[in-house]
């Protein structure tokens, strides 16, 4: 069971994971639109302003494409095996499943109120917001839940990279971190451009 949760790529890759992953990405963008949750870079999850649906769709797709291209280039350069592009793109798309769940946290208004409250009381900006004890507890639970989902997501991304690129050991960890950092920078720039256009 743990194997399936953290490394389903032992059993699923290629076109199957690609189709399933694309379905996950589209579902994530639709839910993100309704819950106002966005992903300003590969691993960030934040509440957003009211953007049109196309913003969430482009963001979900570009996050996936950027990270897949970066890992594909790394795999071509560093792997001893013959790499299939469909495996890299498919497993990376499938590994974004935790963020489909993360969009559901946007249905709760507690975190929004809590965020406004923090901004008003600590940073002395924004409008006055009052929060109940219940909202504070829910907000902390949502933050912890999102953190767990992020850890799960990064583990899935790593295992997807390791399996589809056949890179092992310390080398796989170093290359994964480097690839992830490059992807975070590129996707942040894309999001900034996207916000300006929209």
């Amino acid at each position, binding site marked *: 069971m743990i194997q399936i949760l953290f490394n389903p790529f032992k059993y699923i890759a290629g076109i199957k994971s690609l189709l399933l992953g694309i379905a996950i990405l589209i579902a994530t963008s639709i839910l993100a639109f309704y819950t106002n949750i966005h992903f300003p870079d590969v691993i960030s999850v934040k509440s957003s302003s009211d953007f049109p649906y196309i913003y969430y769709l482009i963001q979900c797709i570009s996050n996936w494409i950027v990270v897949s291209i970066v890992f594909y280039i790394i795999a071509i350069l560093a792997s001893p095996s013959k790499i*299939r592009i469909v495996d890299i793109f498919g497993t990376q798309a499938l590994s974004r499943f935790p963020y489909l769940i993360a969009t559901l946290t946007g249905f709760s208004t507690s975190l929004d109120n809590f965020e406004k409250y923090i901004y008003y009381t600590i940073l002395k900006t924004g409008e006055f917001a009052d929060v109940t004890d219940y909202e504070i507890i829910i907000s902390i639970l949502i933050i912890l839940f999102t953190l767990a989902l992020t850890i799960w997501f990064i583990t899935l991304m790593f295992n997807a990279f390791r399996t*589809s690129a056949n890179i092992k050991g310390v080398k796989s960890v170093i290359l994964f971190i480097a690839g992830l950092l490059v992807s975070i920078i590129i996707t942040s720039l894309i999001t900034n451009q996207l916000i300006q256009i929209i």
Partner: protein
Amino acid sequence: MNKKLPITCPSCNSELKVQSLHCDECETTINGFYNLPLLLKLEQNEQDFIISFMQCSGSLKVMAQKLKLSYPTVRNMLDELIEKINNLQNK
């Protein structure tokens, strides 16, 4: 009972050699020193993998379906095996 062929010495971990071969039919025994063939130096599961791979006509896709594993997982297993065989040949 399906006995496992030992390939390394349990005492010093060195590679074992064949000293004696026996015919059950006529009870002839041949003594001498023979090296183990390369394939017999592999673990049983690795030998099974090679046989399955040949039975699948060398298709990783068919192999993946047969083992209920993903294509890259099977390709990685094959690459590890190739590396091990290369190391054994270069010894």
